[in-house]
């Protein structure tokens, strides 16, 4: 017996403006990057606040104050207290994991209305006491007498105070020990991706994003967000894309990860960023009941693992799996959004798509063909817009659905590489043609 899956509709999708970590959105805690989007999306429908079955959000920073960001978002968005909410973590693809779960729950007929998305405040990722310092605190607390306390305290050494930077540790693979930047360096070396090629790509990302913003293309997807200590200003657009970016300027930057002989710089990588995104998923029954006008239909998704040190090639395997699952060829899609974690990594994926030998190194037996420039990341990508880790997986789909709608096009894929050695991809179909 095969499980018959129901159609899954994406009624709407919105995102916050992105701002580089430490900039305009630094004081906005993770839940507030998403809750207002949920309110905004549901306000535009006739769905009452007690008819949402599930709220699912991706988040990787797991702020100590909000261990379950998804549930907090449900409440802060003014949804009924009975609304179930939870948080998912699949590193860079946490937002995509959230929408995949929404898809499964609606496809399986368990839910009719789900809000899913992702949020990340990379500004607010903490500094952590070292293990030595933590042990010292524990020993002092355990000590009963004054002399025991003094004894415990005497173990203190100044280096104990040097903190662990959570964000740095989080971006280092625990299995192979490589920093994410070094995994990009590895791909650049193995596939001969030059510095010039990477800078050229990064430069285009900035100019595409700036043009898209100027043409008002982000107006449908960005919801202005109140920020600042007194919450009295509205941020309307992304803080990151640079209109004055040049290849020459990028060429002047020093390699950041492999400082002596590397090619990956801060300029041709994505900046750490604050942002959030949210999408409303509905079953066909809910679409009819609430008289909704969905923008897209989600066809399927696929996740795939590979060596952690080559995690950047994840999209190749994920998209290959997605094609096999759905029978829709990449070349038949009108648009493809692949996250630009590193220019080198994205160019590596392109090599893998076009080159049988490279593809076979990753056990991919199909040559899908490189994605033409006019279909790939047409409004710029994370190098310009930034990569709020927990949100990007769903942000890509938000951007993709609005661009498909604008073009009255048919199908599109959103895909991304995942720290730890995975790739994720999902396929959607535009319904407003």
């Amino acid at each position, binding site marked *: 017996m095969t499980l018959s899956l129901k159609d899954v509709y994406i009624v709407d999708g919105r995102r916050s403006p992105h701002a580089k970590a430490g900039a305009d959105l630094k004081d906005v805690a993770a839940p507030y990057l998403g809750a207002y989007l949920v*309110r905004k999306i549901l306000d535009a429908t006739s769905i009452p606040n007690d008819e949402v079955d599930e709220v699912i959000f991706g988040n990787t920073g797991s702020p100590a104050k909000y261990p379950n960001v998804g549930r907090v978002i449900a409440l*802060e968005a*003014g949804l009924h207290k009975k609304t179930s909410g939870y948080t998912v973590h699949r590193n860079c693809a946490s937002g995509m994991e959230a929408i995949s779960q929404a898809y499964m729950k609606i496809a399986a007929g368990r839910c009719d209305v789900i809000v899913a998305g992702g949020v990340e405040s990379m500004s607010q990722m903490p500094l952590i006491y070292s293990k030595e310092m933590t042990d010292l605190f524990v020993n002092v607390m355990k000590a009963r007498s004054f002399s025991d306390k003094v004894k415990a305290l005497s173990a203190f050494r100044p280096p104990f105070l040097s903190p662990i930077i959570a964000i740095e540790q989080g971006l280092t693979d625990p299995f192979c020990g490589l920093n994410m930047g070094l995994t990009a360096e590895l791909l650049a070396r193995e596939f001969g991706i030059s510095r010039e090629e990477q800078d050229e790509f990064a430069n285009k990302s900035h100019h595409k994003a700036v043009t898209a913003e100027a043409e008002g293309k982000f107006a449908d997807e960005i919801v202005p967000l*109140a920020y600042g200590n007194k919450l*009295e200003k*509205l941020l*309307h657009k992304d803080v990151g894309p640079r209109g004055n970016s040049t290849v020459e300027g990028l060429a002047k930057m020093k390699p950041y990860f492999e400082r002596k002989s590397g090619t990956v710089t801060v300029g041709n990588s994505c900046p750490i960023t604050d942002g959030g995104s949210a999408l409303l998923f509905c079953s066909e029954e809910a679409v009819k009941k609430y008289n909704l006008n969905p923008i897209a239909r989600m066809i399927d998704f696929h996740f795939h693992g590979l060596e952690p040190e080559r995690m950047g090639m994840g999209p190749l395997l994920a998209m290959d799996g997605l094609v096999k699952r759905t029978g829709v060829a990449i070349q038949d899609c009108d648009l493809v959004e692949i996250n630009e974690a590193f220019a080198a990594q994205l160019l590596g994926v392109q090599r893998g798509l076009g080159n049988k030998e490279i593809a076979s190194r990753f056990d991919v037996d199909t040559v899908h063909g490189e994605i033409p420039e006019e279909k790939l990341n047409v409004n710029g990508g994370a190098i310009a817009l930034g990569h709020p880790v927990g949100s990007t997986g769903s942000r890509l789909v938000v951007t993709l659905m609005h661009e498909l709608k604008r073009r009255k096009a048919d199908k599109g894929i959103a895909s991304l590489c995942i720290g730890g050695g995975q790739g994720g991809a999902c396929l959607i179909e535009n319904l407003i043609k």
Partner: protein
Amino acid sequence: MSYERIKFEIENKVAYVGFGYNCDKSMTVLDEQTLTELRDIVEECHQKKKELDGVVFHSLKKNCFLAGADINLIASLKTENEGAHGAEQGQNIFNRIEDLPVPTVVCIDGVCLGGGMELSLSCNTIVCSDNPKTSMGLPEVKLGLIPGFGGTYRMPRRVGLPTALDLILTGKGLDSRKAKKVGLVDEVYPKENLVKMAPKHFGGSKKKQGFKDTIEHLASDNFLSRKIIFQKARENVLKQTKGFYQAPLKILDVMEAGMMKGRSSYLASEAQAFGELCVGEQSKNLQHLFFLMESSKKYNGPQSEGELPVLKRGAALGAGTMGGGIAWLMAESDMAPLMKDIGPEALDLGLKQSSSNFMGKVVRKKMTYDEFERKQRSITPQLDYSGFNKVDLVIEAVVENMDIKKSVFAETEKHVPETCLLTSNTSSLSVEDMSTALEKPSRFAGLHFFNPVHRMPLVEIITHSKIAPETIEALYNWCLKVKKTPVVVGDGPGFLVNRILMPYLNEAGYLLIEGVPMKELDEACLNFGMPMGPCRLLDEIGIDVAVKVAKIIHAGLGDRAESSDLSQQMVDKGFLGKKSGKGFYIYDEKGKPTGPNEEALAILGSARKKMSETDIQMRVFLPMINEASYILDDGIVKKPSDVDLGLIFGIGFPPFRGGLLRYADGEGLERIYKAIEKFASEVSANRYAPSPFLKKLVDDKKKFYDL
């Protein structure tokens, strides 16, 4: 013995005295019967002292321990002696509680004010619940009274002199957390455990005195520092009340003179002071105001037949200072408002207004930053109508222009549900006319807030010919819910408050032209008790705005409302008031007046006229009384109390005068009418054209409050 108002039981050698027994009102008060029963119960406890481990006072009523002495009882007191005697009776009962040889514990859950607080103070131990409704205080001063049941004697002994003075002189309430902090209560429990825990305090709960307490005690408990504390308190009172209020000064006299007295002679002086104050005109006026406020808490407008619309979600149209203030009010009361305007700059302005209102509370620690963030973020600033399909109440605050407002309403009506109420915060335009823009005018009303929204309690609900009673009642209840004071008024130029304010501001212009110095004019009004003189008020409103409103009122009411051209000349010279930095006065960057604007006064020329303070006051206040008579005659409001509430809460007419019409009643309407006639012949036949309605009252020998 059996009791009707108090539940008295003895269980496991503990006597439980429960107030709020057989009480169907929401608040329990110490009325005559309750006091009599309490006296008997206390005596019974004295008799049974051998069988008792202790006495526990508690309440059977939800959210109310005791709301104080019955104010009707106080209002019925006729003479000083009667008042003093009444206070002594209460004092005697509380003395007997204090003198019980067994331990006494009072359990406070909910409101505990005035007499209830004084009863609690006579117990050995006070414990209270952490119920957010729990509040303790001695608010007598707000009624122009001194706490008369021993509160001024026992409070300083429990919390120390400085805290006691603060509580008694301001009448403010403390929540459980603060009450514990100042030492008023010994322990705080969850309300379900409160009475259960009371007997555990029979052993006494003398708290350990911290080092800080000891220092504080040493610092405040000696002759010299007490003298300084009283002097400081007196200065503060004079500064806060400008010397208008008698009660706080009387309280200080009693407390200071009584510092060295024993209980009985102290209490005698407290009772005597209570007697003097309670029959004084000022206290009677404040009691009158209390009754006005109480009666305004219940809707008594046109009867509704259908179901009332539920107003859960709000929207503010227009995000300026007023729109931002309205969005703030809605966010504050959990209505997650939409705030729509036509440009992003306006949205920033609205957010800023709301944020600054909230921030005031955060700074005063009335709100945590997290609460602020949640509420401020519940406002959705937007440029389109998305989400209006879920809105129950729209308050419009766009520019004061009839055509624009009409088109805004016609457009908005297309986006909101059938049940949504649509209201306009217009201050001067005809609500009747505006209602024609709507397909369904029955759900439309004027809802006039006063600026700034977070400070001014009054809201005028303005009706028109097609309004549904359900609309009025739902708006009335909503105003109460968001802690505003609503007054239902008919449509007409300037509605209620601005129409009566008109002669106040108009006459100021004429007086200046006649040569009365601005300083003397403003001071005469301040000395009457107004929060601002007319010139200062004009600056605050904006002189251009005042000119615009004056024109509308003039057009509507005719020559009676004619204004001098002084304001127009000011506007022509760019003196718009506080907002332009220059009006009648000059303002610094923070908006503080620094002195008169000599350039503006130069317009007036060099004529100087000496006029007595009383004459100035009569020139401005008599035409207000006259206009109020016209308003009653026109049926803009139904009752004189509406006029009084409107002026006290809308423009800060001095509360101790009980309101404009109560003041008029007190002065004698015949005298007032004659004075108006005199001004009509000597000053202006138009502006002082006496109201026939007032004439009829005089002829019938009636007062306003006889209506």
